[in-house]
């Protein structure tokens, strides 16, 4: 007798239908709200051509050899207190196997103010290192061979000034600008959208960005002139889809601005880099990274007509999610960070920062910073995850989720286009509202226990143990303020004020401002003075606060 074999999918569907599913009220959608099926099958990926790493559209990675060729760069973001103290931390990290530097600046530096400005009160050296002039940059990089390492600098409104300081220190070390490698964040659009460290209005802000891209294309060709950042958009509360869409939309806005300047796409596109958050929703993050590469490749080749393959390849840095960390039971942050870092690695990141467990409380201690770095080393050398290229490629679920992220991002590009582009969307508060809505929605889901944060709304303990935290000495502020006053007193005054005068004149015209800023930096004009000169011409920007 012949029994017709039943289709196994039908059997499974029937069995699923008759079994009872978990009913604990906890969301089964992704953290961004994409509904998930309990199972994905080949029916979710109809008519798919095989994809390979190193080939357009690079869903599976930009290098044919993946991490078999070269591991990601372990790049821990750090900086605190004075240039001298941070220099000591850099040497400690390099001695412990870190492979690149990443500078965190304090709030006054990020906002273009000197340490002795009245509004710098209480802020000097707290969330990064205080850099007021070339003298501080010389101390920060003392004994570090700039021709041999790469450095990432997280700074935006005053980015051009800090890059010029770096170039000037290299000159003193005898390293030509053409040999320098590193990354400047320099992404002003996401400041308007999310992190809000803007100073000038959008138009002159964009001019400075394009000036630095144009200058570096000729003079500092190995420098990544911009790190187009989703990280801050995500940390401000966006969903993964919004992070993906808004970041890539920003990227296209920079491309448009450079083209408008008259640059050729293939002369700058390969030096654009990206920076994403590696959040806690494991598969959604992996899908986000894979979708980002695919979308960018298509836009660069098909819409912008870039000819060179390297212009199509989206390279990115990632950092584990600060907002996912908890002050409660802070050791759990080590586990969270490990999971997030694994997502970044499986998503094919080029470089990675892993957060320290105590960063939700203060700047990391040496011990916490070492554990964070060791977490990456553990992933790279102990777990074997780097031995296979894009190991999740072909996963029904991950591929389907990658497609969905791409589809939803494209829908956002349409909406942004309808508003008239990124800058009009900023000015109308579109991004800010989308992000605030998402942040509020997520908070409500937590309050209703539809999402769980361990140690926050479930699995709590009554007696929280205190952990050691790093304190910034309050004397530092007056010492740093004295240092910048001394720099101003001891320099060649005529040289400094002439350089500032020339910069002001150039800012009123259309010249590329980089050579003027470099001259001012070399003359030990301070960051605050250079910014002030530009503010006199450009003015400042205030956003309309939307709640």
């Amino acid at each position, binding site marked *: 007798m012949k029994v017709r074999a039943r289709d196994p999918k039908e059997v499974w569907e029937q069995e699923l239908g008759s079994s009872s599913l978990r009913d604990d009220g906890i969301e089964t959608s992704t953290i961004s709200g994409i509904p998930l099926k309990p199972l994905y099958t080949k029916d979710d990926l109809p008519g798919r051509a095989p994809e390979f790493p190193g080939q357009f559209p690079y869903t599976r990675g930009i290098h044919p050899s993946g991490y078999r060729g070269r591991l990601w760069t372990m790049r821990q973001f750090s900086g605190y207190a004075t240039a001298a103290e941070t220099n000591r931390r850099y040497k400690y990290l390099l001695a412990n196997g870190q492979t690149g530097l990443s500078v965190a600046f304090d709030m006054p530096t990020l906002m273009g103010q000197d340490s002795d400005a009245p509004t710098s009160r209480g*802020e000097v050296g707290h969330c990064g290192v205080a850099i007021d002039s070339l003298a501080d940059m010389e101390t920060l990089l003392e004994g570090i061979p700039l021709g041999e390492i790469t450095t990432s600098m997280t700074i935006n409104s005053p980015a051009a000034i800090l890059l010029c300081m770096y170039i000037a220190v290299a000159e003193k070390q005898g390293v030509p600008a053409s040999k320098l490698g590193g990354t400047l964040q320099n992404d002003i659009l996401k400041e308007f959208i999310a*992190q*809000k460290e803007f100073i000038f209005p959008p138009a002159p802000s964009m001019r400075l960005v394009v000036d630095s891209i144009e200058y570096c294309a000729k003079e500092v060709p190995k420098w990544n002139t911009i790190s187009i950042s989703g990280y801050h958009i995500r940390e401000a509360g966006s969903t993964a889809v919004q992070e993906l869409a808004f970041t890539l939309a920003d990227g296209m806005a920079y491309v448009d601005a450079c083209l408008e300047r008259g640059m050729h796409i293939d002369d700058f596109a390969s030096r654009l880099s990206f920076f994403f958050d590696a959040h806690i929703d494991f598969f959604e993050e992996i899908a986000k990274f894979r979708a980002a590469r695919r979308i960018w490749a298509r836009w660069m080749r098909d819409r912008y007509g870039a000819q060179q393959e390297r212009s199509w390849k989206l390279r990115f840095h990632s950092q584990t999610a600060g907002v996912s960390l*908890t002050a409660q039971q802070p050791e759990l942050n080590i586990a969270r960070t490990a999971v997030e870092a694994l997502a970044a690695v499986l998503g094919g990141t080029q470089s990675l920062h892993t957060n320290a467990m105590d960063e*939700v409380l203060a700047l990391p201690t040496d011990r916490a910073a070492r554990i964070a770095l060791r977490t990456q080393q553990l992933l790279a050398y102990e777990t074997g995850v780097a031995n296979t290229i894009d190991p999740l490629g072909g996963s029904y679920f991950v591929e389907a989720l990658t497609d969905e992220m791409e589809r939803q991002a494209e829908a956002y590009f349409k909406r942004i286009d309808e508003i008239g582009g990124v800058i009009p969307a900023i000015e109308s508060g579109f991004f800010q509202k989308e992000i605030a809505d998402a*942040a509020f929605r997520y*908070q409500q889901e937590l309050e209703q226990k539809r999402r769980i944060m361990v140690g926050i709304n479930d699995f709590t303990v009554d007696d929280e143990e*205190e952990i050691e935290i790093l304190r910034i000495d309050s004397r530092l502020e007056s010492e740093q303020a004295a240092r910048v006053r001394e720099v101003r007193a001891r320099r060649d005054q005529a040289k400094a004020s002439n350089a500032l005068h020339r910069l002001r004149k150039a800012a009123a015209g259309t010249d590329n401002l980089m050579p003027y800023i470099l001259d001012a930096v070399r003359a030990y004009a301070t960051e605050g003075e250079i910014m002030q000169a530009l503010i006199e011409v450009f003015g400042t920007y205030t956003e309309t*606060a939307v709640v």
Partner: protein
Amino acid sequence: MPTATKPVRIVVAKVGLDGHDRGVKVVARALRDAGYEVIYTGLRQTPEMVVDAALQEDAQVIGLSIHSGAHMTLFPAVVDELKKRDATDIVVFGGGIIPDDDITALKKRGVAEIFTPGTPLQDIVDWLRRRFPEKSSS
């Protein structure tokens, strides 16, 4: 819900240089949803600007947010500014990345309460209801 008395007015402000406004916006919305009148000042407010806003708006409460580590300077500066303007009846509370030891010190300096990351919004609302029971909106 109709209220028997005038609702409590709260000026919510970001002091200091950092622009991390996720928390302050979420709290502002939650307080508004709970029936309070909320005025959000926006970013980079000096202590003087915050107190100006509170006096102009006739607010009973000031809520401060900071994430840059400058809380030990700027929160007490708001309290001092209130003293200078003879407005110490205005209650000051705050939130942000603030270590436990600092919370104790800030309370000694006249900050009524500090809420740290992970605080349920309801805790903040409950705290305000206890502070202003007669003006509770529901």
